[in-house]
Structure formats: C-alpha cells, structure tokens
C-alpha cells in the first residue's frame, strides 16, 4: 500500500563547512516533529538521523538540500548534496571507517559512525553516490514502526 500523502513538507538548506550552524537544521526538524505530535521515540530517531546527515554535509560536502516530508505513517528525509561523492559506499558504511580530518575529530565528530547510525535509526535507508557530483540519502522512519 503506498504511503499516505505528506501532510507537512519543508526544505532545509545546509552549507558545507558551516560548523557554526551545525545542528541548526536537525534541532529545527526535531521541534517541528514534536509540534506535529509525533511520539518521542520517532522524534528522537528522526532528529538523530537529521543531525548525522547534516554533519556529514558540513564536514564533507559543498552544499545540500534536506527535504523533510511527514505523513501520519512516516517521516521521510531526503538529503541531496553536491560534493565529492563516496567512491566505496560499502567501506563508508563500515562502523569506524572515517576520512575525517583532525579538526573534525577535535569537534567530537568523524568517528566513522555517521552513516551506520543513520541506517540503524531508519526503517528504510538508501544511499546513492557519484564521485565528483554528490551523494543522496533517502531515509524513511515509520511512525508506527517496530524498531529494534
């Protein structure tokens, strides 16, 4: 059965390298989802996914658009970035694998947990990347999903 039409949509632009605004989009998404009346566990999962994705854009990409679409059944987040892309997606999905710089690690990020953590919190996760162009993430979190 196709998912219900989104009742709420919003776009969030994210700029690569903008560490000063890191987390702004994720925190706004969290507040929106809370205001829409979603349960705390779903809101938390969506916020973590959004934050990890936002940090990935800030650390590695040039710019991105995060699209949030909420329906009664699911929260969908699409992150479409212009950036260097990922040559080996399987390797990038490995916990602990990271190409982060020392500066990123000093900020508390770049431990190689971002993509695996996004996948862990998602009910449906798809990643597509082209070297030299960018990466697209498509994440669905079911509001009534039985998540491990």
């Amino acid at each position, binding site marked *: 059965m196709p998912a219900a039409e989104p009742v709420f949509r919003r776009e969030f632009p994210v700029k690569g390298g903008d560490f000063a605004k*890191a*987390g702004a989009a*994720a*925190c706004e998404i*969290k507040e929106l989802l809370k205001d829409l009346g979603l349960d*705390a566990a779903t809101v*938390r999962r969506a*916020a*973590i996914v*959004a*934050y*990890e994705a936002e940090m990935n854009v800030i650390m590695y990409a040039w710019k991105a658009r995060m699209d949030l679409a909420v329906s009664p059944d699911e929260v969908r987040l699409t992150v479409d970035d212009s950036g260097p892309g990922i040559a080996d997606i399987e390797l990038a999905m490995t916990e602990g694998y990271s190409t982060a710089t020392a500066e990123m690690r000093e*900020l*508390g*990020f*770049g*431990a*190689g*947990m*971002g993509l*695996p*953590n996004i996948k*862990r919190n998602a009910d449906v996760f798809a990643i597509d990347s082209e070297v030299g162009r960018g990466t697209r993430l498509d994440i669905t979190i079911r509001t009534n999903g039985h998540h491990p």
Partner: protein
Amino acid sequence: MIVLKDVLALLDGELLTPASVLDTPFPKVFASDLMSDVLASAEPGALLLTGLANAHVVSTCSVADLAAVVFVQGKRPAPDVVVQALSRNLPLVATRLTMFEACSKIAGLVEDGGHARR
C-alpha cells in the same frame, strides 16, 4: 536514581545554568568525548560526562534527549554555549575532576543505589 544535586555534591561541581532543576533524575550515565558515540549509544534521559566543551555538545544532547552535561577536568564552555543550553533547558555542570575520577565517583553512587558517598 541519581539526581543532579548528588552529582554536584559528589563532583564538587559548579552549576553553570543556575535555574536548572536540581532533582532532575538520570536513569543512565554516559561518558564520551565523541559526539558520534553519544548519538549512536547514549540513552534518552542520560547524564553525559565529557571533556569536549563546544556547542556541538549542546546540539547533540538536544537531538538525542540527554538530560544534563558534566564537563570534566576543568573544561568550561564559552558563554554562548551556556546561553544555548539555557534556551534548551539543558543543565551544565563543570568539575575539576578528571574523566576517570568523575566516572569512578558516579559509578560508586550508582552502585549505592543513588545514596551519595564521599
């Protein structure tokens, strides 16, 4: 369950967010300097001990529903980070104890069932 008041007493901590509720209870405690690990493994409502004192700590705690932060080893966040925490009702504590000492004292308190032991 341990509460913020116990943590302040045990760690000789300074409350950086004066209006915070002192009987905030913590069902879990998590210690890490890596916000990636906090996002991946800390449980909602947990107390975070960290040696990292930047704005990402506050954002991470907001996103992952952590209940309060202890900055160890004399680390202090910048005033704008404190303002950000106040706006999100996130209590912040600073202690001069090292991460190991702070964790060790809190572990003793947890083992005691929440009754402070010096």
